């Protein structure tokens, strides 16, 4: 018991590691602020392209979504970070992470938007057209607001996944929350810094996870 407290809940070590870990937290938040809006926008683009009247364009969008949903984000990240230099491009860790996570998250968001748009009945399109709205106006003012409401729990839950995903950036030495915690761990030979980082993730995400459960139940009811 004593050993467990020493090893995982060592307050003295947590206190020493705190400034470093808080700087990591800042980096994690910056990363989220870059990746989440990019992903939401990219996903919307994927979804709108997949509505195209041209079969090849539609097919390409769905293939793109499936492609990036099939590749583990870590593989994509290492491919971009370690592979691109062979092609003469040398992305910084931040750049590599932004590109990899943009491709990964927008494919997931795209799939969610697509499901949402499909959940809005054809009658809504027809009715909007009959009032004189053009295709893009119908999409923006009639279909999307309803689509987003229908898939709101999925959008929020995917956003939680994106925040969790940022921990993978530690693998390419981007000094975010997990990376700084792991640095502190290897410096002190003690797991308390990682427990501290885990606690920070919990504080950030637990309320959202609870919210998702409630949203899901309300929509099901």
């Amino acid at each position: 018991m004593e050993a467990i407290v020493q090893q995982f809940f060592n307050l003295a070590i947590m206190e020493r590691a705190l400034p470093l870990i808080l700087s990591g937290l800042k980096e994690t938040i910056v990363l989220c602020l870059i990746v989440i809006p990019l992903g939401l926008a990219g996903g919307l683009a994927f979804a709108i392209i997949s509505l195209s009247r041209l079969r090849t364009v539609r097919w390409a969008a769905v293939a793109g979504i499936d492609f990036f949903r099939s590749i583990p984000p870590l593989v994509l990240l290492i491919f971009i970070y370690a592979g691109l230099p062979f092609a003469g491009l040398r992305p910084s860790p931040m750049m590599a992470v932004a590109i990899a996570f943009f491709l990964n998250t927008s494919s997931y968001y795209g799939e969610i938007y697509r499901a949402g748009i499909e959940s809005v009945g054809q009658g809504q399109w027809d009715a909007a057209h009959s009032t004189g709205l053009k295709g893009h106006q119908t999409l923006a003012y009639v279909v999307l607001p309803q689509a987003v409401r229908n898939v709101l729990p999925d959008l929020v839950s995917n956003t939680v996944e994106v925040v969790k995903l940022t921990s993978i950036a530690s693998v390419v030495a981007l000094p975010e929350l997990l990376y700084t915690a792991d640095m502190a761990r290897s410096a002190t030979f003690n797991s308390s810094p990682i427990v501290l980082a885990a606690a920070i993730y919990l504080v950030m995400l637990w309320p959202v996870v609870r919210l998702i459960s409630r949203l899901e139940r309300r929509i099901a009811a």
Partner: protein
Amino acid sequence: MKGVGVTIEIAAAVVLTGTLLGLALAVVRAFRLLALNAVIVIFVDMFRALPPLVLVLLVYFGLPNVGINLPSFVVLWLVLALVLAAFAEEIFWAGILSIPKGQWEAAHSTGLGFLGTLAYVVLPQAIRLTVPPLTNRTIAITKNTALGTVIGVGEILNQATTAQSFSGNATPLMMGAIAYLALFIPIVVLGRFLETRFAWRRI
């Protein structure tokens, strides 16, 4: 390319144990014992909120210091199975809740007990509903087997990066990516098929 075998092995072990544990937890939760349910909800929420990589590092580097030494293969399997179990529990539970009360009452009136109702009436219907979300979640979590590379499990990504640094060439990485695509695209497409099929039936 022996990484492919390792990836498939871990993924299979994770899917099997994770979904079964998730189902078991959902069944236990159906008994509605207050204290037990609180424990289950806390477990489920924690494993849904924590990034898997954090858990992997915590278990891999933390446990040896308190005298428990697990091979990295086991660490990866354990963490991913628990994460999947947490998500699966939530999905199965939502499925059980979605079965109207009338089904329970009708089953009781034919003389079926609580477990009989659960096993023969509620679960068969609930599990149908859970197939699409469960497939999606399972795919997302089995893709996390790539995290094993961080703690030196010899799966696809690990073999590919090792080969890449030996050969000084990006081809192994490309092969690794292709291996993942070959493994997962069929499953993603299957998931899409299941989704439309089950969604259509639900209405």
